[in-house]
């Protein structure tokens, strides 16, 4: 199973922000869309970083002025980027091992979505549930 199937049911697309926007704007977007991270893109819509709620919390704990800081000051610049044809299995492994919570997905140079660790866990759970369901049906059929 490729991660394209995780993106298919997330039709609202990706919420992005620019590096020079403020943390206040970022918090507004996170709250409005009920999400945990924003992809930071430059003027050509190319990802230059990712900003998570955790990045903001960490700064807020020691800096009252966090709201007016630019996104670029807090964002993570070293971003792992996935492709739609990446296998769910290897994406899950990489996200867990490298403690990545959000994975931007690009297809031929265009940002097409974001996969969260929650999406990955849910997709794996549904995959296992489905296989168990199908195996049980077949086992029951063997008895009759």
């Amino acid at each position: 199973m490729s991660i394209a199937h995780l993106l298919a049911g997330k039709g609202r697309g990706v919420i992005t922000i620019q590096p020079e926007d403020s943390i206040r704007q970022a918090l507004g977007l996170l709250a409005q869309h009920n999400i945990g991270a924003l992809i930071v893109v430059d003027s050509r819509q190319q990802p230059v970083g990712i900003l998570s709620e955790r990045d903001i919390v960490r700064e807020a704990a020691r800096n009252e002025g966090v709201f007016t800081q630019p996104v670029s000051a807090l964002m993570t610049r070293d971003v792992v980027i996935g492709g739609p044809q990446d296998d769910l299995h290897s994406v899950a492994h990489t996200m867990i091992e490298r403690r990545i919570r959000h994975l931007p997905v690009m297809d031929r140079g265009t940002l097409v979505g974001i996969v969260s660790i929650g999406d990955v866990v849910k997709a794996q759970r549904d995959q296992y549930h489905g296989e168990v369901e199908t195996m049980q049906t077949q086992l029951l059929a063997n008895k009759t």
Partner: protein
Amino acid sequence: MTQPGTEAHPLRVAIVGAGPTGFYAADQLLKQGGLVAEVDMFDRLPTPYGLVRAGVAPDHQKIKAVTAAFEKVAAHPRFRFFGGVELGTHVTVADLRRHYHQLFYCTGAQTDRRMGIPGEDLAGSHPATEFVAWYNGHPDYRDLSFDLSQERAAVVGVGNVAVDVARILCRTHDELAATDIADHALEALRKSRIREVYLLGRRGPAQAAFTNPEIKELGEMAGADIAVRPEEVALDDLSRAALERDPDRATTKKVEILQAYALRRPSGKTRMLTVRFLVSPVELIGNNAGEVVSMRLVRNTLQATATGTLQPKPTDQFEELPVGLVFRSVGYRGVPLPGVPFNESWAVILNEKGRVLDPGTKQPLVGEYTGGWIKRGPTGVIGTNKPDAAETVACMVEDLAQGLTLHPAAPSAEAAERLIRERQPRFFSFQGWLRLNELEVGRGRAVGRPRVKFTRVEEMLQALGR
């Protein structure tokens, strides 16, 4: 305004598509505590069960046992089936909005993905899905023909559809005659002159989508030997490292089975199935008559993406494989439904967790939902559609509690039925299907087969005395 969902005002739901997802969703709605729902299920075919009838291979009858559970759902007094009724032809979304509070689209993925290579449309090159629909007796495909006088056939892909097609091509007449394969296909395959079947995977054995029971089955056929090249099933460094980092018993076992096949010698069976890895077709080559005569393959190596997925990378080594018949099985693709927003990027209905979205505002369209392959794309086994349907049904229940439903002008079972009788007088009820099922199984019993399928709508009408 009264909230629907009670005995006096049942929640009326139209489910478009009678495959597994539709039945799982119907079951979940009808069994929802504190909710009285009425479910009308529509399908463009006269018969229910979608790919369980028209997709699952005829020599995999056990997988079809899931229909017993669907039959129980259909026995619910507030469930109705309207077969032979197509959205866009007989009824429109606007019609459904007049009679139902909620609409649920689960029409699956009805076409195949193309390979996008020169020669793809030469005579003798087919989508594997058409061959599958043909041998399973789908009325829209039963009159197709495939040139089985050819001796060499290639199936592009190593997913479960590709494996099914390769297996059916390799089966003996006796093996097939014990299944519910459509009569026309049984007859055509009896005369098949196919000797060599190639199954072509673009990645290595560790990345192949087929399951271990499927690959084992390929090594146990009565009339076909299996061949694998040792160098193509030897684990490359990247695959070995990936397995060491993240051990997976099933994958290790899969590679072991294939490596054991590489040691086998032909035992003299009539047919030979060759499973190839790390090759991609780059062109189909035709003769003057426009018929495919061979396929140009490029050898691939594997390279890791940023997330560690191993993807094929073409080398500069090519080879030519003479074949007179080609089946491409590189994925299914959903098709848009008239009047329903579509997401072209993923070939699914535009949705968020099963709520259909307005393409402009990206906000949910009140009362419209989706599930199954047309919601998430073609992936998973039949049972995967159960949690998928559950996610959407949870949204439907949540929205109902918020008062977010359609407000149909005529929310009654009678009014809906009147409309359908007027638009499609030849619709099939579930009672009709049960009768057809009984007749098919009866015809099968007479000749020692699980069933003998009706494959024409006219035939089905006649059988029911209509």
